[in-house]
């Protein structure tokens, strides 16, 4: 009857595609895995090094400074990297966020922009908020290596000495994620 209407079985959204900001200039390694539904916005450069995984719906916003992500990092879903800090004082650093090699940013974590440094092999847990200018882990030593920080300034030090094993496990995880997450770096370039 109304054949013209039924011609396409797949429903298309009437609303225009949400474009939350300018398309960020990117500098990707060829071996990264970035999901189609990741969000990259801002006007500073986003650098992502080799074998890093960006899960779906992770949000990288470089409008407040450059974002640099090291090798073999895992950035999980719903994270917000480079979020605007509530603190209005300008930071002295030109970098927004630097995430070193083998870091794992878990679901829903927020990393504010403004000279924020995440050290090698760090694990930023579920729903954490890392403030502007924070420096965690190697090689900055403001928060020393292998420290677990949980709440209200309490902390303990991981003395198990398993960081090599942890890095190996992370590499294995990335191999699996490479098969599971369809990567589409071309979309962001």
């Amino acid at each position, binding site marked *: 009857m109304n054949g013209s*209407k039924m011609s396409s079985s797949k429903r298309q959204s009437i609303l225009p595609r949400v474009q939350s900001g300018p398309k960020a200039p990117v500098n990707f390694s060829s071996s990264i895995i970035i999901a189609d539904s990741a969000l990259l916005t801002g006007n500073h450069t986003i650098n992502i090094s080799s074998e890093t995984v960006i899960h779906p719906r992770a949000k990288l916003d470089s409008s407040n400074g450059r974002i640099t992500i090291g090798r073999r990092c895992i950035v999980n*879903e719903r994270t917000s990297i480079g979020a605007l800090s509530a603190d209005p004082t300008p930071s002295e650093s030109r970098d927004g966020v630097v995430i070193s090699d083998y870091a794992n940013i878990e679901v829903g974590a927020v990393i504010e922009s403004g000279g924020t440094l995440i050290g090698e092999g760090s694990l930023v847990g579920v729903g954490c908020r890392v403030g502007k200018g924070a420096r965690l882990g190697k090689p900055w030593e403001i928060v020393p290596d292998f420290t677990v920080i949980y709440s209200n300034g309490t902390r303990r030090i991981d003395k198990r000495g398993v960081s090599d094993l942890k890095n190996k496990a992370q590499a294995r995880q990335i191999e699996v994620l490479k*098969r*599971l997450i369809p990567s589409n770096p071309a979309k962001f370039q």
Partner: protein
Amino acid sequence: MSRKPVKGEYIETDTGNKVSRKAILIGTQHIMLGGKTVIQAEAMIRGDLARTGQAVSGSAAAPGSNTAVAIGRYCYLSKGCCLRPPGRIYKGTFTFLPLRLGDHVFIGEGTVVQAATIGSHVYIGQNVVVGEFSIIKDYVRVLEGAVIPPNMVIPSFSIVAGQPARVIGEVPEGGHEAFELRELYKTVGNNPQPLPV
């Protein structure tokens, strides 16, 4: 004169699932819903993180054998919660293992679940973190803001709270009806009914 039915906020399936159009379901072929389950807006289920490894067998595996997230009946996933299968190194390779939810499981807003198993009649409050490979048995109440560490096993009938989460009490006798989600199921959907007072 359009005979097209007006599109509601929820997609209602034959088995009674009510899935919000704004829910984010990734890898739907690996997600099993038992029926009568409510999935609210912005809830996220990572079905794409399915088990790998046995794919080499080649022979046609039964459909649904590679489930990443299995959800029972009358479950209620609130706004902004996230279900993701836990992963670990197993026999030398990294693998994701399935996440199983029983029946009548309530998951609060903004909660992240990476458990191995959640039993039946479990209430999990808002902004809870359920660590990887934790096991929650039946009739458990997790209070809001709790952080359940990885690999924790929570026995039946406990009340759990804190960061890290500890068992702080027991579900009182006769308090089991409070876990029923049948009435709550009726309050959402395209023609919601009010809760009976």
